[in-house]
């Protein structure tokens, strides 16, 4: 598995790493039981901070996507199989929606903005208008 991070996009690196691993799992590039590089190997390969790798791994473990086994390494959880099936199903829904939007003559950028706007409106807690400090 090859990962690629871009430090100058402004997006936190641990989130970039999490997203790529998550995506690899969702698309089946990484399968249940597959081993991921050790923290040290990942840090050296990507020339990134080991603590940042730790943070990404911890959060993915919290999400149940990977398991950190003491002494033996980092593995994709056995339980991700179901998640992959859900993702596959979702993918066909998104694909058909995209086809219909393209039929309406919308450009890629327009579709992306629409999607992002709708997602933002859809965010739970948004309507309450409460201040989060």
């Amino acid at each position, binding site marked *: 598995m090859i990962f690629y991070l871009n430090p100058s996009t402004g997006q936190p690196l641990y989130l970039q790493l999490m997203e790529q691993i998550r995506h690899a799992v969702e698309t089946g590039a990484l399968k249940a039981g597959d081993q991921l590089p050790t923290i040290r190997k990942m840090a050296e390969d990507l020339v*990134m901070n080991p603590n940042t790798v730790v943070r990404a791994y911890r959060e993915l473990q919290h999400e149940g996507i990977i398991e950190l086994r003491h002494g033996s390494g980092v593995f994709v959880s056995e339980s991700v199989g179901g998640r992959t099936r859900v993702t596959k199903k979702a993918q066909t829904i998104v694909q058909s929606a995209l086809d219909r939007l393209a039929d309406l003559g919308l450009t890629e950028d327009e579709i992306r903005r629409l999607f992002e706007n709708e997602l933002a409106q859809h965010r739970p807690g948004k309507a309450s208008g409460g201040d989060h400090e």
Partner: protein
Amino acid sequence: MSDWVIEARGLRKSFKGQPVLTGLNLEVPAGSIFGFLGRNGAGKTTTIKLLMGFLKPDCGDARVFGLPAGDSSAGLEIRRRLGFVTEDKEMYPDMTVEQIIRFTRGFYPKWRVDLEQHYLTLFDLACRKISDLSKGMRSRLMLLLAISHGAELLILDEPTEGLDPVAREDMLRELVAISASEGTTIFFSSHQLEEVEQIADRVCIIDDGAAVVAGSLDDLKTQYQRLRVVFAEELRTPVRWGEGVEHVRQDGRTVDILASGNVEAIINQARSFPGASVERFPVTLKEIFLQHVRSD
């Protein structure tokens, strides 16, 4: 004992009545790779000299490994436990690499021959005269000496200054490797914001001798966001934005906001205007840096 490898509180230092440090606070946790940023003359080198015990503060407290840096016997202990790589890489040009290693080893009872041999091979430094080394090789030699004496903390003053992109990436990879394998805390100053963004997990930006931004880099990047609000029509009176707004620029119906936190509340405020749309963009370390130090 505190959890900080380096801890400074209210450091002040003037030279000939000119204030250089004006109340600097610094907290460097063990095991971090800490990027220390600021413009030339902001006080970075003075801070490093104070931490090394080469200078005494006029006021305030600096501790390294929990020991007072200004105290002369504690300073000795501190310098034994840390490794220092300076900006100016002049050193004994007539010696060979092996000679300077033997010379340096004499000062450190806990010298790590395994690390010395590892880096001698890795950095391809064996059987060379110091005067024949390129700038990049000299940096590596200094790093080898610092690591091999078993330093718990590396203080690096612009370690990649003057290196070509390949040598720079190699140097960064070595720093990451040392951090991962030995748990060494690395404190480095740099003007290369991209490299700080690449390997640091914590940063401190100083300006006019005091910290203006400090914290976890990932947290800062989460808190800081740029928002672009497009209003349905041009506003007749400027909006009084809530807390967290650092900078506002308006061009017609479009308002560009740099926020340092509280982003959700600011977005809600923008959306309370009928027909307003909001887009959010991530912010780079460079944007954060420029926002906080450019003003003078």
